[in-house]
């Protein structure tokens, strides 16, 4: 029954036996961990952040940092880092459950670039001096990182990137441009794929460099996106001097490190908890609207559509956990990450379509100021309207960023079809 998906409280859902077993083997109790996370999200979210969560508004930089620091009071923000480096040594399963529960609650998106990407990179590829300098501020959210991968001519074809870093004495001189850099306007530092050597295979000659965005010669310019937000940027480098100590690994290790990061990014972007959260929004909207004498949620058309989404949701969640359990056991199926990326973005888009179709019945006002604060003056329709429409539009990019769905299908073709 479509309605039961959200009629059941999350606490009533039983943890799968396979998940419980894998958790026990990893030394934690999955059900108890979930319960702890749910209680935290229920009781510890600051009031101002809770208000924005309910209205689907955009969180400020300060709110995001405050939330991350609150999570770190329990050691959770960097729970997936090795114990030797200040983490709790979580495996993929515990990390996945953590992210799923935060998403279900609708808390602010964790800025992954530092905690999920650079932190693990430094643990695996960095030297002691780099770890000593950078890990603490990531853990404490006192330095904000962004990711410099894409360039105007190098999106899908990342290996063709051109940002040039030339060694001169104790420095690299960096010249060129990055683009689609998420939240660079809020960031202190950027980790970049740079070209240190021309010629040879394009994947060779790429290196991984840490650059202070406050350095002379760096310009950050926002890109206006159609969702009314300003969350991606162009970043220009004009003769920027970067100390050689900020090279991670050796020159030429960049591609290996990028693959390490991209693999993690794809597991996280399944966003199965967010899909659950959005399904909750859909059902609540449908139950408060009427079609003639009936609740809209009681119409055959809605129930069928909700059932379709439930099929998609259950299939994806089962697949995501199958992939996570594989990863937890130290095996990695190369197809899974791409599959999760494709289906995760498709599901989110499908739920947003259903939500927008419902909202459209009241008229699609888009009072963008309502994204950041209460609307001062007349408001047409539901208070969540600006936020939900913003999310709908933003979600169109979910099948584009982090390797487009076309690229993901290409990866599956290569691995599964042996072409």
């Amino acid at each position, binding site marked *: 029954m479509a309605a039961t998906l959200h009629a059941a409280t999350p606490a009533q859902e039983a943890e799968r036996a396979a998940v419980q077993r894998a958790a026990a083997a990893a030394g934690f109790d999955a059900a108890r961990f979930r319960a702890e996370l749910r209680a935290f999200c229920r009781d510890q979210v600051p009031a101002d952040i809770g208000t924005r969560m309910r209205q689907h508004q955009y969180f400020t930089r300060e709110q995001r940092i405050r939330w991350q620091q609150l999570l770190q009071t329990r050691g959770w923000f960097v729970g997936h880092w090795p114990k030797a480096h200040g983490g709790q040594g979580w495996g993929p399963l515990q990390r996945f459950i953590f992210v799923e529960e935060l998403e279900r609650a609708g808390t602010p998106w964790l800025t992954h670039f530092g905690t999920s990407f650079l932190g693990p990179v430094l643990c695996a590829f960095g030297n002691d001096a780099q770890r000593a300098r950078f890990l603490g501020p990531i853990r404490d959210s006192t330095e904000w990182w962004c990711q410099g991968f894409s360039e105007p001519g190098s999106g899908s074809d990342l290996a063709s990137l051109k940002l040039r870093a030339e060694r001169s004495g104790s420095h690299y001189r960096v010249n060129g441009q990055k683009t689609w850099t998420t939240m660079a306007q809020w960031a202190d530092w950027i980790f970049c794929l740079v070209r240190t050597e021309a010629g040879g295979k394009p994947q060779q000659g790429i290196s991984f460099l840490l650059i202070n965005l406050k350095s002379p010669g760096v310009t950050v310019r926002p890109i206006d996106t159609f969702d009314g937000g300003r969350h991606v940027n162009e970043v220009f480098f004009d003769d920027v001097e970067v100390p050689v100590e900020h090279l991670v690994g050796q020159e030429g290790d960049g591609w290996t490190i990028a693959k390490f990061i991209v693999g993690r990014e794809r597991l996280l972007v399944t966003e199965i908890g967010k899909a659950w959260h959005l399904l909750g929004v859909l059902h609540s909207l449908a139950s408060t609207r009427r079609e003639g004498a009936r609740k809209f949620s009681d119409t055959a058309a809605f129930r069928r559509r909700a059932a379709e989404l439930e099929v998609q949701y259950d299939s994806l969640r089962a697949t995501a956990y199958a992939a996570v359990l594989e990863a937890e056991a130290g095996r990695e199926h190369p197809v899974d990450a791409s599959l999760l990326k494709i289906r995760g973005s498709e599901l989110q888009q499908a739920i947003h379509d259903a939500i927008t179709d419902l909202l459209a*019945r009241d*008229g*699609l006002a*888009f*009072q963008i100021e309502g994204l950041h604060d209460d609307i001062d003056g*007349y408001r*047409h329709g539901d208070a969540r309207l600006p936020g939900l429409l913003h999310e709908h539009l933003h979600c169109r990019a979910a099948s584009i960023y982090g390797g487009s769905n076309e690229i993901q299908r290409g990866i599956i073709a290569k691995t599964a079809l042996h072409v």
Partner: protein
Amino acid sequence: MDNDALHLFEETLARYNRERYDAVQWSDYGRLPQGHAPERWAELQAMGCFELLQPEDDARPAPLADLLPLYAAAGEALWREPLATVFAEPVAVINQLADLDQRRTLLDGLISGERPLGYAHRETADGAADAIATTATASTAASGTGWRLSGDKAMVIGADVCAGFLVSAIDAARGAPAMFLVDAAAPGLQLQRYRCIDDGIAADLRFDQVPAQRLCDGAAAVAAANARGTILAAAEALGIMRGANRDSTEYLRERRQFGQSLLGFQALQHRLVEMLMRQRECEALVAAVAEAFDHASPTLPRQVLVLRVAVARALRHITREAVQLHGGMGVTQALRIGRYYRRALMLDSLHGTADQALEALSEHS
């Protein structure tokens, strides 16, 4: 319009779009206080577009088919002008009037550009745009001072340029819906404007004992207005489809990754071909249904429902594929692809949902 005239008209509109509606101009117009450029609106009138409403004679209103190129041009360049206040629903209501003088006067007001009219029918949460689920009511006062109208109307497109409003409300004397004319400056009328998902401006209207003139019965007028609005929205959607398909093809042709043009990938060619096929089908369908409208075909109601569903699906498919094929560029404000997507959402919200149309189709056969 014969074929030569039609061709000439389309060329004029294409030139107008090139000269008056590039991306920069589009942005500039949006920043004006009206949300559009009044001189563009005046220019359309000077080009003779408003004359397309001139009836051939009292018995024969101007053909809707003649307006299709205008709306397609509006769709392709994303015109911000409130076309609906002159060309769409109000004309259908006016053509329902039995009193020919009244018809003539209201139509002249539209054609001269002096009295554009807003169509105030929707109420929030009533779902279907063609249904009469109105809670607004109008009654004649005991003192005999004429009709007074009270209630709320939502999403009136272009409300702030209108000289008056055509309002659906319950005629309290008969207990049945009727159409009323309300002057924009009438006492007791409050207008709240806001931006919509397509960056256009609409308003919610509150009527509190507002003096009104009863025009005609409601059900037939609302059905005719909805049919006309649906067909014109479909014509606009065609313009969006053409623009989105053209831009996507050009983008893939120029964009090089992995050492070749993206258009060289067969998987992407097939995606574009599917988009093109849907455009072609909709072109044929729009023309056919406009013809049925002009000839008052008995099957018009079903044809309008079919059009509603087919165009909604094609428009959604094409605009989202266009965004996807443009990659990151598709979600920026720099290209019109993202604006097409947003305008498509708006168009799809104006005349009931496609689901409702499909349901209506399945209920009566």
